[in-house]
Every structure is written in structure tokens, then in C-alpha cells.
């Protein structure tokens, strides 16, 4: 979260913090958990990431800018939390003390087995093989349905970069899936 500094010149009073954060998370809790799930692949970790962001936001609320910038800030914080998780997993795997935990593998249940058909698994597996930024752009674009400008705000990059990254990501995905789209 430290690489995004959305500052506020006129912070809200401290007593408004809990209510504002609470309202934001009540409205967007499940969306944020879904976003984290799509990045880290298992639900308990996704919930942990969002919970950590929620706790952290209480401390940082006063220097988040205008209300329309709050949600992009929180989404960016969730993505940063996911990156940290994936980084730690990478370290643990290299040390040989953690196995599994790729997308959709740890939340197996009869219900999920039905939901995630073989075709969908292939798509998700191909998605995990993309570079991190391409994966994030595609998830923000095709799951959250954000515009290029909104994605640019969340990721802290230009709209042009979003456009080119999305195009390259889709091309790589099509190649992985052996499609001629």
C-alpha cells in the first residue's frame, strides 16, 4: 500500500473514520474478497487479505483523498496484499515448505467442482501463467468490468499501458488456450 500515496488536504474528523470505513466495507466486502480470491486462489487467504486492508485502512483513513478515490485506493490495497501473499508463497515454495495453493485449488467442494468445469480450469490455469500485471489488468477488466481509466487509477499506470497490457494479456491467453480469436 505504501507505493500509492493518495493524500488528503482536508482529512475527515477522526470520529468519522470507523463509520466511513465500515460503510465502505459493508458495501464492497464481497467484491473485494472476490477480487482477492481471483488473485490468490483460495478463499481463507482472500478473506485474510481483505481483513488486513480493512484494519490498515482504519489507521490511514485521514490521508485518503476524496470519496471517489477511496474505492480505487482500497482495490489497490487489496491487490498489494495479494502480491505480498504470492511473494511469501513463492519464498515458501522455494524453501520446500509449502505446496499447492494455486488458483481454485484449495477451496474444493462438491459445489465448486461443478462450478469450475474443466474448460474454466484451463482458462484459470492459463491466467495464472501470465505475468502479474497482465493478470491484474485482465481481472480488473473482465471481472470487475472497470474502464481503462479506472484500471489505470487502481494500478497507478497510464491508460495507454492498461490498453497495451490488456491486449498482450489476451493474446497470450489465446495462445495458451490455442485459440484463434
Amino acid at each position, binding site marked *: 500500500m505504501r507505493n500509492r500515496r493518495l493524500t488528503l488536504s482536508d482529512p475527515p474528523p477522526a470520529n468519522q473514520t470507523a463509520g466511513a470505513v465500515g460503510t465502505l466495507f459493508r458495501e464492497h466486502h464481497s467484491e473485494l474478497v472476490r477480487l482477492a480470491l481471483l488473485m490468490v486462489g483460495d478463499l481463507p487467504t482472500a478473506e*485474510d487479505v481483505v481483513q*488486513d486492508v480493512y484494519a490498515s485502512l482504519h489507521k490511514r483513513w485521514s490521508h485518503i483523498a476524496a470519496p471517489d478515490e477511496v474505492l480505487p485506493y482500497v482495490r489497490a490495497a487489496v491487490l498489494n496484499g495479494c502480491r505480498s501473499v504470492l511473494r511469501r508463497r513463492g519464498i515458501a515454495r522455494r524453501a520446500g515448505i509449502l505446496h499447492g495453493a494455486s488458483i481454485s485449488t484449495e477451496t474444493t467442494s462438491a459445489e465448486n467442482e461443478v462450478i469450475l468445469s474443466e474448460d474454466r480450469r484451463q482458462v484459470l490455469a492459463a491466467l495464472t501463467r501470465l505475468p502479474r500485471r497482465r493478470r491484474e489488468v485482465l481481472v480488473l477488466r473482465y471481472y470487475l468490468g472497470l474502464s481503462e481509466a479506472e484500471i489505470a487509477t487502481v494500478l497507478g499506470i497510464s491508460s495507454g499501458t492498461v490498453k497495451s497490457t490488456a491486449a498482450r494479456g489476451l493474446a497470450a491467453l489465446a495462445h495458451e488456450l490455442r485459440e484463434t480469436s
Partner: protein
Amino acid sequence: MTRTEDRLQDALSALASQVRDDRLRPLPAPARDQAPSIRHTRHQNAWRAWLIPAAAAASVLLLIAVVVAVTRHAAESRTQQTTSQVAMPSYFVHWVGFGPSGRIQVRSVSTGALIATVPPPKSPIADALDVEAVAAAPDDRTFYVQYGLATPNLAGRQIWIFSFSLTGSGSVTPQTMIKGGPITNGLPGQPAWGNLAVSPDGTKLAFAANSIDRVTALSPAYSDKIIVIDLLTGQRTQWQGGLFRTGKQFSIPNLSWSADGRSLIFLGQWCDPPGPTASCSGGSAPGAYRDAQVWSLGIATGGGSLTRGRLLLRQSARFPLIAQAFGPGGSGGSDLTVAVLSGHVANGNWRVLTVEDVSAATGTVRHVDYGLSLGRGQGRTPQQVWLTADPSGQHLLVSYAVHGGFTIGWIGNGALHQLPIRQPVLPSNAPLTIGW
């Protein structure tokens, strides 16, 4: 929209649909005393100097990790199903403070963050109740608290059990007594710590209670009993006696449920009476008599003698002191997980704790989950290192006395994952009252 975009959108939506609003873990209640902010300053631009290369390095590592994970997953998913289907608990509860000013707190397992502080029961005698044990139900939201009540006008000690729940908004419901009312069974002295265990289906509660049966003027020994309460009806079933040894004290320091909920795994310990009311869990004098056995007790036996169960494991040279025992779980899906103390120092202090998966059929060790050095000098007593199993028996929470307090963590992948909290040492070397 291209076919790739269609397929991607469909796959993402399908995976995201696993998140159901009604099953989401509640977020922690906002803490009122949290500082509102720490101002950002320009020097934080320095982060960017190393953040970009660090992120690039992380991306490379991530890519490698994902490729390795995907290739490993196919081979491992089947073998992991038996042991990883039950998610680790999200919360643990523990007792913080002393006497009437103490409180039960609910904390996040992943961060140690305080989720909620539980108000005491609304009872005229609330101040007289001592917290003896806590436990969590399999739903990860319902918790049980065992209180002891000793008053001058009571011949023994009463056990009061309350429950409370964590709501979707992160607050807790008031503590309400479970069906069946108080149980007058115990001794007026020390409680039987860490005994409360919720069945895997959440319908029964088991615990060991002190009993004054078989106490004579010549022998101050006493013998623990096991009580199972049906949480729906309040009906109690009790197993008592049969394992008594003349002149020796018999304690059941911990018990847990089997994975199918049909039996209890309990540890029986015998020792020279350390005092009129103390249990065998504590230290003992050099050369003192001490023995331990792990038993399985079928619930279908409907009560009676403890010998209606089956002996699973004995203390031996391989298991110098069995400190605790739990039902099926552990990385190998073994029959038993035992906490073994070895390297006796003096006065009941031990140097090493190992958590081992043991075959109940053969008594052989299948896997050592974790080893903890308890200090080369004085070591620790069994009460200073306490394990708590979740209802599935697959996950172990550890509270460990260090200089100046207790640390708390969980065992996984051969390591102790410490939480960033520390709790002060309790009087009388009592173990931490903790459950998940």
C-alpha cells in the same frame, strides 16, 4: 467480444461465485482507541526507489512459483484432500487478565488482531465465576466458555458453561448458558484446564471434571471423570472410575473428539499426589511416580467406567512423557497426534517438546510435525507449553511460556507460526486459557 474474452469472463465469474455473502467471515469491529492516522511525508518517496525492482523480482519469483505450483498440483491434490479439506480456524479465543476484571477476547488467527471483547455473562454471580476453559465450534463463529464457581456454601465446585457467537458485523452475542444448567461435580480447588472439546458436528460438548470419588483420609488422590453434554437437549452422559490406582492421583489433562465424532480420545495421567487438589499436569518431584496412557472411548457405550474405552498408547522410553494427545489429524492423517516431552531436567521440567503423528495400531511414530526446544537450562513444565486442537483435530494452536509472557502461534508445515501478540504470565504457572 472475442471467444477468449468470453471464456475469461465466464471463468472469472465462476470462480468468484464461490464467495457467498452469508458465509463471509465477519470483519473485525473497529477499535475505538486506534490512532486515526500517521501522516505521509515526502521521504516516503524513497520507497519507490527499491519498490520497483523489488516488485519486478517478486514477479519473476511469482511466475516461477505459479508454474511449479500448477505442475505439482495435479499430483498432490488427491493426496492432500484427506488432510486439507478442513480449513484452519479463522479465530481463536483466550482469557486475558485476572479475576473479575479479566475478559475473553476473540482474535484473528492470521494476524492476531483483536476482533471482539466478550462481555461477562449477565448473572448475579458473574464476578464469582472463574474461566477454566474455552473452545470453538466447527462453524468458527460459536464459542463455549467453561466457568468454575467455588463458594463457601458449596460442598464442591460447580461448572457453568456458556456460549456466545460472533456475528456478521464482527460483534459478539451475549453469553448464554447451555442447556442443562450448572454441574456440581468438581473439587473446590484448581480447575481441570483445557478440557473443553466440541464434537465435529457441533452438537456435543465433552470435558473432564474433577471428582472426589475414592478419596480417603489416607489417600488424598482423586480421579477425573468425563462428561459429554448433548447441546440440543442438555442431556449428560458420564464415564467415571476404572482407571484408579491406589494411592495415586488420576487426571485427564486433555481430551478431543475423533474425526467421525463417535469417540473421544483422552489422555490419562497418574502421579504421586502433588497436593490435595492439583492435577498431574504440573511438575513433580525428582523420581516421583508418573505414568500416562492414551485411550479411545466410544460415545455409544453410553457412560459407565472409563475402562469401557480402548487403550491406544502407553508411556514408554520412546514417549518419556505424553503431555497431551489428540484425535486423528496431523500431516500424515494418523490415528493420533501426541505432544511428547523429553529430556527431563529437574523438578518436572523438560527440555524438548515434539508433536508427533502416531499409529494407534502399532504405536509407531509416522511423522514428527514439530520440535520445540524449551531451553537448555531449566526447561519448562508441561503446563507452560499448551496445545489446543480445533474441532477437526487437524490444526494445533500453541501457547508457550517465555520470559515475561506467553507467545501464541500455530503449527503448520513443520514450523511454529507465531502471532504478533504476547500475553503476560499467569499466576501459579497456570497455562493460558485458549481455544479455537
